[in-house]
């Protein structure tokens, strides 16, 4: 019937769940005055805003890459139209958008912007004779007659087109925003633009706008260039490296966030219970987390991940496609990491609960005979929540980095999954070749660094705003004095 069939993978579902929870959290934070105030402090920092823009880009790509479908196969004659066959391969909206990039495969390695393959091959000349040389790429720079002469000019032109388009897209995004923001404050569009771009707003919208401009231009330039070239080259089997990098974003983001779904309930529930009730409950929970945290992290993950792999193999009737198998492996890995890493949050919350339990307002609530569960949810958790939040944002970057290491150790994501870890792993051998194949590694490095760095900077801002003990260095002033 339909031209496609919607597919919801396990990770898609959990990711949606997480995003929904985040949305609820944002609405909640908007309603509570103290949370709004603290978040405003976060977004008043320029670094945090720039980091936010980058994180949002990653998030957007990941969301697009999480909406999966199977296209319908061309109807075969004689088969009932109602029983249409769908492809076994699963695609996402991102794949759809990048169809050209995905399909433009070469035979093997090629360098960024190359017109020729990395290795010499036997080429059949038009006259039938064989020649050993670097063959032209089927897609990269294929539109040029004489690559050596025309390439620089073509790249420049495309880049220029990209800059202009990016700028226009940015204007299309920025002007309505400035108009709405200005109307709220009763300013004209011009005044509003000036206020935003000069950094006169309370929140650092100037940083947001400039970072957005940069991102718009970069994306547009990449889009225009990749129309004719492999911007980051191709890998061993000729796949476009840019495509692989973009697909890796979702894996990194999921890896950094999905474990939260296990960490939060376990860490919060057990941490509060241990701290509040004390006695044998505390002993039991402490025992539990001492056991788990005393096992070396990688070994425990390895043991659990190997087990999950076996389970997936033994139930091949459920995980019947490559996509569902590698997805199951990704999800189980995230859940395993969650089941292991709740201990640190639990420990922190337990300590904080021990402190808060003695606070006079908790004593006052006990004076009124308020039940324990209500004291925990109403008095203790809201006052310890900054710990949860800081823990989450700090964990994120650590997890993104851990993905690469686990892939190396052999207990990471499925080799069929696109991920930074898999790319780095593949790059090990490439560095030994002559001339060196540096582009896969470089692409993975840049995109991973951008993600982890912005996550770290954002985490810093969150910690500074939420942790009452954190020192508030007057950051914005420092930046401004530097500009002088």
């Amino acid at each position, binding site marked *: 019937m339909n031209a496609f069939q919607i597919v919801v993978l396990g990770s898609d579902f959990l990711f949606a769940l997480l995003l929904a929870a985040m949305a609820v959290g944002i609405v909640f934070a908007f309603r*509570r*005055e*103290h949370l709004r105030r603290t978040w405003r402090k976060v977004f008043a920092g320029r670094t945090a805003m720039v980091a936010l823009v980058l994180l949002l880009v990653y998030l957007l790509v990941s969301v697009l890459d999480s909406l999966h479908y199977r296209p319908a196969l061309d109807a075969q004659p004689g088969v009932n139209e109602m029983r249409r066959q769908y492809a076994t391969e699963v695609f996402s909206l991102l794949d759809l958008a990048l169809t050209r990039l995905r399909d433009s495969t070469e035979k093997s390695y090629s360098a960024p912007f190359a017109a020729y393959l990395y290795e010499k091959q036997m080429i059949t000349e038009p006259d039938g004779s064989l020649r050993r040389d670097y063959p032209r790429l089927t897609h990269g720079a294929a539109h040029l007659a004489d690559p050596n002469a025309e390439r620089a000019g073509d790249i420049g032109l495309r880049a220029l087109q990209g800059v202009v388009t990016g700028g226009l897209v940015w204007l299309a995004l920025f002007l309505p925003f400035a108009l709405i923001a200005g109307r709220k404050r009763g300013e004209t569009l011009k005044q509003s633009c000036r206020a935003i771009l000069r950094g006169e707003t309370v929140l650092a919208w100037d940083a947001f706008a400039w970072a957005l401009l940069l991102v718009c231009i970069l994306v547009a330039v990449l889009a225009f260039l990749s129309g004719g070239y492999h911007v980051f080259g191709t890998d061993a089997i000729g796949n476009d490296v840019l495509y692989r990098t973009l697909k890796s974003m979702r894996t990194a983001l999921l890896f950094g966030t999905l474990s939260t779904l296990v960490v939060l309930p376990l860490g919060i529930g057990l941490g509060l219970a241990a701290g509040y009730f004390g006695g044998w409950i505390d002993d039991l929970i402490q025992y539990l987390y001492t056991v788990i945290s005393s096992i070396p992290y990688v070994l425990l993950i390895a043991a659990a991940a190997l087990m999950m792999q076996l389970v997936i193999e033994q139930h091949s009737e459920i995980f019947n496609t490559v996509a569902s198998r590698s997805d199951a492996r990704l999800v189980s890995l995230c859940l395993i990491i969650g089941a292991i890493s709740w201990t640190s949050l639990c420990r922190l919350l337990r300590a904080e609960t021990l402190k808060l339990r003695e*606070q*006079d*307002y908790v*004593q*006052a*609530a*006990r*004076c*009124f*005979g*308020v*039940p324990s569960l*209500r004291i925990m949810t*109403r*008095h203790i958790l*809201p*006052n310890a929540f900054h710990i949860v939040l800081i823990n989450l944002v700090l964990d994120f970057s650590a997890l993104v980095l851990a993905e690469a290491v686990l892939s190396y150790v052999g207990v990471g994501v499925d080799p069929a999954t696109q991920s930074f870890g898999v790319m780095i792993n593949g790059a090990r051998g490439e560095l030994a070749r002559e001339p060196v194949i540096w582009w896969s590694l470089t692409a993975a490095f840049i995109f991973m660094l951008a993600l982890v760095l912005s996550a770290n900077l954002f985490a810093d801002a969150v910690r500074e705003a939420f942790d009452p003990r954190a020192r*508030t260095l*007057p950051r914005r002033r420092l930046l401004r004095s530097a500009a002088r």
Partner: protein
Amino acid sequence: MNTLLAVRQLSMQIETEQGVVHALDDVSFDLHAGETFALLGESGCGKSMTAFSLMRLLPTGGRIASGRIELEGQDLCGLSEAQMRHIRGGALAMIFQEPGTSLNAVLTVGQQIGEVLALHRGLKGAAARGEAVALMRQVGIPDPERRLDEYPFQFSGGMKQRVMIAMALAGEPRLLIADEPTTALDVTIQAQVLDVMAELQRTRRMAMMLITHDLGIVARMAHRIGVMYAGQLIEEAPRERFFSAPAHPYSRKLFDALPEAQRRHGRLASIPGSVPPLTMRFEGCRFAERCEQAWLRCKAEVPAWHSPAPGQRVRCHLFDPAETRRATTSFADAEQHIETVQPAAQNGLLEVAGLKVHFPIRRGVFQRTVGHVKAVDGVDLRLDAGRTLALVGESGCGKTTAGKAILWLIEPTEGVVKLDGADLVALNGASLRAMRTRMQMVFQDPFGSLNPRLRVSEIIEEGMRSLGVGGSDAARRQEVAAIMAQVGLRSEMADRYPHEFSGGQRQRIAIARALAVKPQLIICDEPTSALDVSVQAQILNLLKSLQAELGLAYLFITHNIAVVEFLAHEVAVMYLGRIVERGPVEQVLQQPRHPYTQALLAAVPRANLAAEQGARAEPNHVKGDMPSPSKPPQGCHFHPRCPHAMDICRQTYPDSKIVDNARVVRCHWVSD
């Protein structure tokens, strides 16, 4: 007299996130050798900032904007940092409020004193050690040779402050700045430390700048007084003049706000409003907004210095010779009487008998219980409806634990607590909850007792919800509004969060929360000890009028004798977990019988020159520290510090004796 220190037009600013705080503005004063100058004021008035400016130890973002600080003719503001380091700890030394945190925990006391000796006097090795021992002896630390190698945590609070003093003296300063040196200490210890400081100042002919908020300490220690308000010095006077005729309206208010026995039947004067934020610029007098005598000129023109008497100067338009007409107008405070409730029938609302709270001490491989901290060790109390019983004692005596045990916040080890004849021990879950509507608590720290994440209305409603008081939601909301009005909060405050309120307002919220469930008894745990005098007066007034209106009974836990005199009908004095003396407030406070009560009362500094001069003539302050409740002394717990200790005191704990008809004393020395 030769001027040691001359401060001229000193202004200091601190850059903060909220803007530039003008912490000090145009402060000028002189200090002479051998004199004690007290800088008096409430929190945030800039008295500590003055001290930090003198030392040039400014907080982050702080800078001296203008002015001169001349020490022995040398302007400190013009010195380089290296030169200033030579002055700090040398000619100019300072001691701080919290001896516990102001000493470095991981260096021995000897090392910390030795640092100053090496830096400013070039003493090293045996010479330094000898000098350090001598210094420790001077400040009254027993066995200094041994204690020199101990760490600060091995010293009690009073001893730590003595170490701080010894450290400050090590550089042989000409001026010692003491920033609230005894605020963190108990009264008996405070008296000891003040004695040491006065003695040292006399023998060393050293000038001292004493920063304090306590008029009693000023009366005991100071030669001259400077009063600060909102970053400015507003009055300066010699002690006799200041205590007989304070000039500035603010200074007078400070005196009138003091709770005292003679004000028992009235309201205390309080200052309306609060200190203006120092981020703003002032057009006129800073006190004008809160001053009852202010007129147009006060708001328009910054007052100049005027001198109503020799040595006294005041920054107030009232004393402008051109305004003499106004100065003579009466200051008489409209004395409002509060009807004290007549004690209802002696019905014994709260009866406590043999209350014990013991915490086990565990040791060894198997964590066996090897002993107990006897925080509360057999307390008997009785409180009638509509009356106030003050439970008085120094920190660590178990008074707060006793209060919490009565409320069942801490499970008592033993004993009977009866409320209206019903034994709380026998009650189970549901009836214990019902009992909670009749007994509530107000806590000490107004900042810690309100959940910062809840709105005021939610805070007040919580108890009503939980205990099912107040009926439907709408009815409850009305009730909350009524209660807020009763404690002096405006109804639009209901939707705000605690951080938007000042300390005094927060304490009102806490009182409203307790009142919401309509209790008959409120246990007040030092509800005013974190507040400034003028705010304390507001809260005490409120508590008193609520008692008159609602017939509440208070169990008032405090260490502040003045508050007891003002508020209580009966008083129980607690020492190391036990009540040593208990009886009507007039009897106990006028003629204390137990040696500890006597010592405690003698140690309290009075804002009254006559009383203080009497005390100064014979400083018979009790010696030593309070022992640890985990190892109380054999026999009477007080005997190691008691001037009247006899053999029997060292062997058995005295039984209760009833003396003067109405009071109970536990002392061998007291005769029936």
